[in-house]
């Protein structure tokens, strides 16, 4: 008899685990309260990247003269830009539905709630209820933007990242609270569209979890583009809500006014209305479900993956966790390894990192050498006219193994995977340095970094 598996939530964690379980012979029911693909596909990774690509074209056209191309007036059609985003999202939803069909997954629309450790009740649109039983259940209900009480989210001027994806007009001005990945990406979308942006971050640097050098250079680049970045600053309260403006008071006494405020201060787990108590599933104080390294909760047969368990809240982490959960359910022993997780920020220039950075090496008392190369010295970057940023490799001084790497620059999010593979496979900087990299490419800079770890980069003048 087939093993029955229920997956609650069809984001990049849930749908991947559903497909893997089905591939391994399970009879799978996948329940989604909203749209197939979850936050990632509908209001996260995909729509933001779709919009970013529209504004990237705009930015390129604005620079066209630098490349010897004369263009006339350029107009932004925000309605069409948003419509394109919805087409991309809808297309990917359709592809997901086809994947579910081809894997014989039963896809149900409705709100899922555990009523005991082996039963999920689905409340469908219109209120009809259906109870489904299973041998194993995977909770992949994700997260929502965190809201803090000082803001009244019913005001039209106060936005979460989701609201910002459905704007009908480009705001003249915007305060972005939180200069993490989400805040920085939205600044990257609206700044080229002409929105005057002020970013407020309470930590001393932008992108608080990233390498300091990256954060410093990004701040410099943002400032140059006219984005005001206030680090080490808090919003104390809202002085005024008006129909078309909001005035916030900062902890330095200054008042700032803008047409909109985007609150991007992190995300909170969707764990409160899914019947965890009825099934006796434990969470931590902040509501994240506790799991072990096989992704199983304290209740046998109930697994949890993705944002709802906290930790590294990234789509590809959720997918990896989903595969681990599905494999364990289907009898394969599988454990989650968080050692090599690339993280990407789609600003312009892009930012990507994997493994440890120099500061983390210092904290852990690991003796390292940093091999670094600035894109200003890369011939391909010069040809592209995109010379901002750098690559650095963090190399173990004793073993010469690559322990991590950080990239800021064009195509950083694609380039990072050579370093990810190196960290995962225990490759040395000597080995990367002796691997021929094609010319002229941005990837050559990775080889230069590896060589530079031994003080012998070819395209770098060593002085002093």
């Amino acid at each position, binding site marked *: 008899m087939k093993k029955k598996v229920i997956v609650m939530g069809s984001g990049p964690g849930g749908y991947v685990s559903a497909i893997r379980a089905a591939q391994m012979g399970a009879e799978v029911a996948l329940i989604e309260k909203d749209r197939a693909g979850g936050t990632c596909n509908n209001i996260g990774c995909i729509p933001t990247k779709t919009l970013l690509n529209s504004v990237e074209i705009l930015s390129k056209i604005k620079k066209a003269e630098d490349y010897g191309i004369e263009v006339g007036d350029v107009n932004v059609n925000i309605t069409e830009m948003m419509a394109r985003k919805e087409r991309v999202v809808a297309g990917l939803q359709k592809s997901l539905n086809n994947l579910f069909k081809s894997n014989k997954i039963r896809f149900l629309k409705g709100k899922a709630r555990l009523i005991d450790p082996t039963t999920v009740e689905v409340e469908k649109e219109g209120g009809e209820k259906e109870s489904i039983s299973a041998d194993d259940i995977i909770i992949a209900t994700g997260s929502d933007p965190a809201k803090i009480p000082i803001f009244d989210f019913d005001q039209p001027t106060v936005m979460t990242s989701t609201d910002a994806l459905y704007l009908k007009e480009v705001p003249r001005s915007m305060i972005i609270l939180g200069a993490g990945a989400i805040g920085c990406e939205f600044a990257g979308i609206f700044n080229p569209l002409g929105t005057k942006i002020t970013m407020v971050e309470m930590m001393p640097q932008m992108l608080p979890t990233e390498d300091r050098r990256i954060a*410093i250079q990004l701040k410099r680049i943002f400032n140059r583009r006219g984005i005001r970045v206030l680090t080490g600053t808090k919003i104390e309260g809202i002085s005024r809500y008006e129909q078309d403006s909001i005035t916030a008071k900062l902890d330095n006494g200054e008042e700032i006014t803008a047409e909109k405020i985007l609150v991007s201060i992190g995300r909170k787990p969707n764990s409160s209305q899914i019947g965890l108590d009825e099934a006796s599933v434990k969470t931590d104080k902040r509501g994240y479900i506790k799991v072990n390294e096989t992704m199983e909760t304290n209740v046998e047969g109930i697994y949890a993956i993705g944002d709802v368990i906290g930790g590294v809240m990234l789509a590809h982490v959720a997918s990896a966790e989903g595969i681990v959960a599905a494999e364990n359910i289907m009898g394969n022993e599988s454990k989650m390894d968080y050692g090599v997780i690339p993280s990407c920020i789609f600003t312009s220039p892009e930012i990507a990192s994997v493994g440890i950075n120099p500061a983390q090496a210092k904290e852990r008392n690991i003796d390292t050498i940093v091999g*670094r190369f600035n894109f*200003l010295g890369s011939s391909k970057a010069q040809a592209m006219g995109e*010379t901002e940023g750098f690559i650095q490799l963090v190399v173990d001084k004793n073993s010469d193994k690559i322990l991590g790497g950080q990239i800021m620059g064009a195509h950083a999010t694609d380039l990072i995977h050579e370093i990810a593979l190196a960290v995962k496979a225990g490759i040395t900087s000597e080995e990367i340095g002796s691997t021929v990299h094609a010319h002229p490419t941005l990837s050559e800079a990775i080889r230069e970094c590896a060589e530079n770890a031994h003080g012998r980069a070819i395209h*770098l003048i060593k*002085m*002093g």
Partner: protein
Amino acid sequence: MVEIEGYLVLEDLYYLTTEDAHIWAKVEDGKVRSGVDDFGQRQMGEVVYVESPSVGDKVEYNKGYGTIESGKATKDLYSPVSGTITEINSKLDDEPKLVNDDPYGEGWIVLIEPSNLDADLKNLLHGDAAVKWMREEAEKAK
């Protein structure tokens, strides 16, 4: 102030001239402010990043304490005196190019509380000796 082949030399400063250091030092109320000299910054090209130490770090005469980077070069920063860092120029985070634009002024890099000032100063060039040395450097760079 003297200009030699286009390179500025301030005669009241002290210069660390070992290797290609090109580091200046200025004694201010018993402390030592230091940065890269005009010749040094010119050789670098546009500075894109300054890797500074932290306040409280110990430095030693003629030993590296950080680096400055341009697109084409990385330069070690040597300390002109031994002592402890009491201040770093945080403006360089946002505007590293100050090292190019105003090497002896706003482009300063560290302020050091010296531990052996008199002895260290004897190893640095000053006044006419500094001018003569810069003339040689400028000649070599031609």
